[in-house]
């Protein structure tokens, strides 16, 4: 059989490979011959090459985000299907969305519907109607150490404060207060995971990634009293 003849079943082979149409008896028989096998392998390689060159990149997970006004300025939130992943403030929507794309390799989609519960609880918080949050948190992109630190901070009730050293003690690393302070500075979900309730020794305010005025404002909302 010549090369030229090999082409006569091409349409059937392509229909089989990309349209899922099974070949008839004649072609099925031909596919068991050397020529048939080679022809089919050629199409498979072409499709394989196409897929590797132009096929799907790893699909990026969708994150739903939204912004809301608050007494401390615009607050931005982002959530996956598994729960909250980011809270931002004192920044533009564009930079918040760009960071979701860059650091979480996600596809951000503005969705007030998917973030409704988070937004509603934050509104109630800023209105002084609720102090504790009851939300699902997606910790998958958070390192184990930071997660332990944030969980310990989250166990501090609203209206109270503890020291960095106390958090270090609670996570079983009594000499790790500096590491705790640094980790809290990387809190991806401030306000809701209350790193602002962790302060320096002796009742001093300590630091805050959002600025000390912000930290004081949040503690004031919660009715916490600071020394000095």
């Amino acid at each position, binding site marked *: 059989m010549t090369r030229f003849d090999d082409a006569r079943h091409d349409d059937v082979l*392509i229909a089989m490979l990309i349209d899922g149409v099974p070949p008839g008896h004649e072609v099925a028989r031909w596919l068991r011959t050397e020529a048939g096998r080679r022809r089919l392998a*050629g199409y498979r390689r072409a499709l394989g090459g*196409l897929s590797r*060159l132009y*096929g799907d990149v790893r699909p990026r997970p969708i994150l739903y985000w939204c912004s809301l006004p608050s007494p401390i300025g615009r607050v931005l939130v982002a959530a996956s299907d598994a729960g909250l992943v980011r809270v931002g403030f004192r920044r533009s929507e564009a930079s918040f969305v760009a960071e979701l794309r860059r650091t979480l390799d996600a596809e951000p989609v503005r969705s007030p519907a998917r973030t409704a519960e988070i937004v509603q609880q934050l509104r109630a918080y800023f209105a002084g109607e609720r102090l504790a949050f009851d939300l699902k948190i997606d910790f998958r992109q958070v390192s184990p150490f930071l997660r332990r630190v944030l969980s310990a901070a989250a166990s501090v009730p609203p209206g109270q404060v503890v020291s960095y050293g106390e958090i270090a003690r609670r996570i079983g690393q009594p000499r790790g207060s500096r590491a705790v302070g640094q980790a809290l500075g990387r809190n991806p979900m401030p306000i809701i995971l209350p790193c602002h309730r962790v302060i320096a020794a002796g009742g001093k305010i300590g630091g805050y990634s959002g600025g000390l005025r912000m930290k004081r404002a949040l503690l004031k909302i919660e009715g916490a009293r600071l020394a000095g």
Partner: protein
Amino acid sequence: MHGSPTSSRELAERHRHEILRYLLRLLGDAEEAQDACQQTFLHAHRAFGRLRAGSNVRAWLFRIATNAARSMARGRARRSGRMVEVELDGLPGRCPPSLEDREQLRAVARAVEALPSRQRAALMLRQFEGFGYREIASCLGGNEAAARANVYQALKKLRAVLLEDSA
């Protein structure tokens, strides 16, 4: 998210990523694809009000994107008057490391670049966007049979460039 988008903004947020990838497949160049993507949604925004309820929004959007890519490619041909060399690493898929593989893939990429724009678009829509031939026809014009012929022709050309190595 389900149901029809209620605004062109929602439309853009829902489909931007897949349209961008489609344009990368059509143009093979990230920057051009970005530009074409912007034009696509600008056009979609202007035409959104005229979109009939119940129409296939996704196919409509892909048609706009296909046209944006075509005019982008025409502009490129006018400017350079020659074919741009394929940059394997700039394509949306991931390339394996082996050298022979790269040679084979380069041959496929060149063949894809040489395809008439209609065949290339038809092939990508069928293979990666899950479009049926009727939807492809509604994106590219013509009927279902022509859409199928475009896909089949394209694939035959890709197989042919690999023939030398396989014999």
